[in-house]
């Protein structure tokens, strides 16, 4: 069974009388453990698709099966709980909370993880210990008590990745993760995502950068709200 199956996803925005169709019927199957890049020019609807995949936004019509279950019928709060459990987000603008230390930013999602999942996921490790392990792995252990403003762009994005990993999600969604980074930091971030993929995580990256897309196994190209091409990347 596919991890995610989208069928006929449409998204329409209304501004007064004007209707804009951002997504015009997307069918997409994502297997567990895939690394997918969604590419396309700006305004093509790729970010909207990512937010729909991340259960942050609802399509106007279509169906979304997560592990074979239709999720669009669920309430907002049920979607919130699914997000906490299944999905880790990495954003272009990092979205680190300025008054929290690096470690506390990483621990932040834990309070939203439903209790049963928390018990299951952290049965053999203390969450705090796990957070330190991730930071250690991402080369941030000496920065754990720093505030975000004291970090470089690359460190900020690595902190955001650590936060995305905190709840041990099935799926990692990254929206232009290298958009605000210099090329060296960007490369480092993509290497981390690649490594996470190798460990079995499902990763979806939205980008307009060909270099970034080349890390993925499969590249989904979107134009004017439709998938125009699906191809395998040469690098993998």
């Amino acid at each position, binding site marked *: 069974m596919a991890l995610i199956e989208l069928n006929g996803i449409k998204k329409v925005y209304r501004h007064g009388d004007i209707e804009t169709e951002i997504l015009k019927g997307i069918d997409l199957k994502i297997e567990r453990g895939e690394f997918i890049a969604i590419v396309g020019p700006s305004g093509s609807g790729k970010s909207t698709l990512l937010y729909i995949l991340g259960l942050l936004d609802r399509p106007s019509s279509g169906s979304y099966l997560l592990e074979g279950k239709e999720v669009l019928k669920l309430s907002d709060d049920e979607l919130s709980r699914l997000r906490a459990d299944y999905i880790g987000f990495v954003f272009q603008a990092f979205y680190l909370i300025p008054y929290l230390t690096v470690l506390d930013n990483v621990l932040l*999602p834990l309070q939203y993880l439903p209790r049963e999942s928390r018990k299951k996921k952290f049965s053999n490790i203390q969450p705090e210990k796990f957070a330190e392990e991730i930071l250690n792995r991402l080369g941030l252990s000496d920065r754990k008590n720093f505030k975000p403003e004291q970090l470089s762009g690359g460190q900020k994005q690595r902190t955001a990745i650590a936060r995305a990993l905190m*709840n041990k999600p099935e799926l990692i969604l990254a929206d232009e993760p290298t958009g605000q980074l210099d090329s060296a930091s960007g490369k480092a971030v993509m290497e981390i995502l690649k490594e996470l993929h190798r460990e079995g995580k499902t990763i979806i990256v939205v980008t307009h950068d060909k270099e970034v897309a080349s890390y993925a196994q499969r590249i989904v190209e979107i134009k004017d709200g439709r998938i125009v091409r699906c191809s395998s990347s040469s690098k993998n």
Partner: protein
Amino acid sequence: MFFFLKELISSLLHNKVRTFFAILGILFGVVSLILIVAAIEGSNLQANRVIKKLGPDSVLIVSGAIGKGPKGRLRNLSLKDVREISKLEGIFALTYGIVKPTTVSSLSSSKFSAVFGVGENWLSSWNYKIEQGRGFTLKDFRDLKKVAVIGHDVSDFFWPGENPIGKVILIGKTPFRVIGVYKKKGKTPNGHNLDNRVFIPYRVYDKTVEKTYDKVSIIRFRVLDTSNYSTIVEEVRAILLKNHSPNDFTLITPVVVKKFLSMLSATFALFLGIASTTALIVGGFVLSAIFYVNVYTRQWEIGLRKALGATRKKVVIRILSESLVVAVSSAITGSILGILLIPSILESLNVPVVYPAKAFIIAAIFSVAVCLFAAYFPAKRASEFNPVESLRRKIQ
């Protein structure tokens, strides 16, 4: 839970100015509420003290209309009133007195004391407890004995450290034998010294201190059965109105005292109550506005929390918790300020200084209620934010 609190406090400390104004807004209301409840409690305490001193079953008749200056010098009442009242059924411990500040002296020194010519029962009726020697006997009254019961200040002045019983003092020019000393009574609420008094039998007073012409300043009696209280008071009033004009006397009963004092405290309560409620409501609006601005400036943060899996309820709880911290901080700061301000404020209101727990509890409850109410609407609004739009609101 620990993480939640830690994160909450960091957030409030991060926005120091906002938190400061939020606390300040509530603080005024909290402080004024504490002061008003303390003032009311203080004046109730005073009323109860006065009533206790008076006795719940007692009636006091003083010369002159109430609120018209010192009544000690007025002698509108007379023994005729006393005799007529004594014929009423259902009363006991009837007594009367007259007073004049008089020079009291021993062989070597002299002082000014309030000398009272009193009827039988005076000491027991007013709750003077004999500490040394004895009180008056019927024989003292009948035989016009020149005997005196004195206060501690008098005995300590003339015979410090000695037993005054049997000693002689001169009241005016007449020698009196000291037969008793009463227990210290301290001061009246108006500051009169209750221990600088000398009591002698009324008839003896008439013959030695001054001619009384059968006049008295104060009459007092108690009622056997308090259910007959108002009937008896009306009968007494009828007797007095027969002998005097209505402005010549005042009937003081616990009911009157209570009415008078609670009228005062009701005025207090109304005035200060309106003031502090207004302060709290205004504070609540200020707080609400601050929280509205806050949830909008932090909209991306709320969007992020939703992206991380926060449900509506968690967003609401989060923001209400922030306001709860504001409420508790205001309550604590307000209580400290209240404790510091109570003495000066209550003293200026002529009310005994009290620190009623009730005041602090009421203020804390109000503070929490106002804060939760004020933050609820911004919190609810925040919980309804669309996460995708909220994330776009980040100010870089």
